[in-house]
């Protein structure tokens, strides 16, 4: 182990205003699904987290919100960084998580493994940050639903082949379901459970 492995990089330099700015981008992203928003704030992102993932979790997570990470991240610098800056518990079971980070290209866990909420409290569902290879350049998918005037086309890249079928299954659970934030670099794109995958008109 080199000394660098044990150092935890800096979080927000100005938590009040940096988290406020990042939150507004996240709010806009989930209010207008399919549009990419910038949440570039300079933080020392640990290995394995996209900068936008790190900023989103710094903004939203704390001791009240268990986080699920892939085992490699959980046991590495990313896990240590989140424990230190957010005070969050890292959980082993996806269904226990308030927030989760997954690799969009990985095969596991499926979206259905996370908490979809219950019929009386659909808000108690996991928000899943899907780290992908790009927010454009992939296969085009057409979206409809709240926040979208008419239809909106998106083409995120580097997602597992069955990803969009899982998103459709998730939307079919509405008003239950997980809410997705696709992240790449400093950008984030929202796909809440209310968004439907449709044929382009």
């Amino acid at each position: 182990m080199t000394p660098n492995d044990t150092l935890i990089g800096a979080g927000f330099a100005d938590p009040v205003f940096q988290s406020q700015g990042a939150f507004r981008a996240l709010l806009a992203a989930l209010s207008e699904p399919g549009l990419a928003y910038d949440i570039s704030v300079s933080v020392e992102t640990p290995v394995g987290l996209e900068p936008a993932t790190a900023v989103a979790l710094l903004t939203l997570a704390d001791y009240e919100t268990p986080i699920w990470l892939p085992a490699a991240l959980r046991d590495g610098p990313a896990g240590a960084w989140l424990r230190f800056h957010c005070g969050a518990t890292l959980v082993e079971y996806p269904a226990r998580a308030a927030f989760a980070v997954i690799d969009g290209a990985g095969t596991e866990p499926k979206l259905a493994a996370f908490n979809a909420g219950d019929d009386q409290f659909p808000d108690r569902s996991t928000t899943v940050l899907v780290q992908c290879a790009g927010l454009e350049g992939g296969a085009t998918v057409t979206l409809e639903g709240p926040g979208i005037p008419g239809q909106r086309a998106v083409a995120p890249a580097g997602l597992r082949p069955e990803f969009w079928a899982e998103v459709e299954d998730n939307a079919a659970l509405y008003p239950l379901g997980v809410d997705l934030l696709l992240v790449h670099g400093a950008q984030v794109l929202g796909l809440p459970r209310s968004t439907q995958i449709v044929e382009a008109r």
Partner: protein
Amino acid sequence: MTVHQSITDETRPAYNYAYLDEQTKRMIRRALLKAVAIPGYQVPFGSREMPLARGWGTGGIQVTAAIIGPDDTLKVIDQGADDTTNAVSIRRFFERTADARTTEATDEATIIQTRHRIPEAPLKAGQIMVYQVPQPEPLRKLEPREAETRKMHAWAEYGLMQVKLYENIARFGEVTTTYDYPVMVNGRYVMAPSPIPKFDNPKMQMSPALQLFGAGREKRIYAVPPHTSVRSLDFDDHPFRIQSWEQPCALCGAADSYLDEVVIDDQGGRMFVCSDSHHCETRRADGHRGAMLADASALHLVEDEAKP
């Protein structure tokens, strides 16, 4: 023992930016994101005790405090007007605690906190409406128990609401709810639009603005994202309709705005003026003149902006 919050830096002023501590803001922000993802569903949140009284806008204030930043321009209205006492009080609160830039101009505002009205000027993309909500549960008057209404929403069992509205029609020939008129959001949840007059309900339908609702005392947050279906409940044979007046605004002549009635003497004299004070002023500045503007101006009761 459990440590809930780290000790803050002693050199900082006593209150955090926008009054709420950061942990509270995170909790409200998480609730807001879930609210946006499930339009019309009431998200329970750990509403804090505020230095303003419950029922006086503590829900709207907490929502605004959780979203506002240095780039925002805030407008606060009550009954449509920027100068009603509680609107002034809430505006002062954010000027003092968040050093907020404020405005009365609807089109300049990025955040509009409101009680009982939606401005007449069409809302724009990028604007956020924050509604103060006294009773977030549209079914509460039909079923007082929260445990029951929560099940009714869970199973989308809204028959009771339909029956109540239809009983109204049977008795009075129309639905007699004039404000806080229930709406169906995104075809799933029946939602209380807050006590805005039903005149304003159509403005919510497919609005380009984001609409956030805060109920502090009842500890609920809900939302309507932009471009979302918000349909006022009605029946094929009794379609929803809004209020209308027989005369235009006495000051600016507007025939399509919501009017307040002002009693002007004890002989039954009345005048009707725009409830949206900024809308009325803007129209007068543009040269629109109502029937009583000259009288009101001569008595220095309003400014006649068009006069040389």
